[in-house]
């Protein structure tokens, strides 16, 4: 009698065969998809490494949905802020279908430790948000007052509660002009009871260059 014309494969053999195919397909698929990055945080870490920032401690996860702001308004998808010593790193990431990509470069900002409250965002490109470093642990909210122009110079004030550790993130209603520097802005921070803990000096340019009477 003919021996073993076409043996039906056992379930176990079929499972092994499927597992092997899977093991071969997955790396190939990853290569074909150009090694996508699965999470937003990993995309940020790749930005950190590529800019030789080193691995910082993530102090702020700027997630427009979680912060309750309209992402359109903020002109960003998602961003992270990490800190190493006195250096802060800011980088945006964006979603591409199922995966994430770093978007744009990484901006590194050095915080002057002699200033308990310091505006870091002055060194960034024009955007609608500000990043303020704060070394006072008891501060739970911060306020920024800056000159704005719609028809005439006046002062706008925004207040935020801390979303990150040691820093505050402000989303503005209007575009922050690139030429504003930290010397044109006044910062204040408050403790849990609402008491003013610290404020930066009132900029001279308000009454000077901008002619704003307070």
């Amino acid at each position, binding site marked *: 009698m003919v021996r073993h014309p076409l043996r039906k494969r056992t379930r176990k053999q079929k499972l092994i065969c*499927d597992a092997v195919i899977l093991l071969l397909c997955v790396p190939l698929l990853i290569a074909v998809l*150009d090694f996508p990055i699965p999470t937003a945080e*990993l995309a940020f870490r*790749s930005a950190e*490494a*590529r800019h030789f920032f080193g691995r910082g401690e993530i102090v702020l996860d700027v997630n427009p949905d979680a912060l309750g702001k309209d992402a359109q308004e903020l002109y960003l998808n998602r961003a992270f802020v990490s800190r190493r010593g006195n250096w802060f790193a800011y980088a945006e990431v964006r979603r591409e279908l199922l995966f994430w990509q770093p978007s744009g470069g990484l901006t*590194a900002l050095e915080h002057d430790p002699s200033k308990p409250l310091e505006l870091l965002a002055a060194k960034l490109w024009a955007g609608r948000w500000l990043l303020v470093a704060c070394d006072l642990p008891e501060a739970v909210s911060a306020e920024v007052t800056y000159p704005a122009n719609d028809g005439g110079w006046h002062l706008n004030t925004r207040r935020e509660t801390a979303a990150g550790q040691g820093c505050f993130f402000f989303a503005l209603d209007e575009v922050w002009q690139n030429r504003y520097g930290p010397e044109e802005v006044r910062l204040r921070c408050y403790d849990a009871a609402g008491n003013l803990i610290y404020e930066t000096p009132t900029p001279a340019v308000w009454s000077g260059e901008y002619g704003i009477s307070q």
Partner: protein
Amino acid sequence: MSANPAFVDFCTRVCACVRFRPDHPSIQRELMGHLEDRYDAILEQEKGILLADAQARTVAAMGDPESLGRYLDQMHSPFWGWLQIWLRRAVWLLAAVTIVLALLRLEPLRACLTAPVQHGYVMEYRIENNGSYEILADWRPPSTLRAEDYTFSIERAILARYRRTVGADGEAGDVLSLALTLKAANINPWLRGPDLSWLYARDDLGNRYYASEEIFTTSLPNYVRKTGSAATVTYPFSSYYDVSVSGIDPAAAEVTLIFDRYGENTVFLTIPLKGGAGHG
């Protein structure tokens, strides 16, 4: 010959107790075969028996269909059965998708594996050499550097001499220019294409060759000594950069590339200048 209805009925009753439907056909075939074999054997052994009796005996010999069905049901687990069916479908679908995508992106895949060198604008200009530079050396420095997640090496270096403004008052002098094709290799493809805009250089005489980013963010005169770097091509596991150090002092014997943005991640790659001061 058509199937005997009594046998079909028996098989159906057995299969009714087996939850895992996909195995019904093969169970049915096996039992039918058995019933038919038994039926034939009975007919052969007892000539003259009524067909109906033979049928009845055949079926009776198999026993109770429901209990047989229940035993078989224990052996044909629906959980593992369906799991394997769906797993198989998923795997084959994945394999099909992968192969289709791979065929569509064959070139990038091949580039990813071979990662061919590509020279940048400055290097190409030197290689062409339309005469504005005097080429002193064209070689491949063996210098390599392992730093953080990258391994830096130099694919090609061209040292040239030319004349240009060297001072604030517009005086001209001979300077050297070093064009490099720098390769940054990384194991982790997520880290491809490091940012070298802060790459600057120093020579052994202490001169500083400012990084592109430094020049961009501060205002320095255009005759200043510079280090330029631009990414040429980025592959998953390596990237190439067009690096040029210009305004090099002709007396310098070596140039060191430095990655030091934050004051501590300092990393060095030294390139001896063949054809420099010592070589004339």
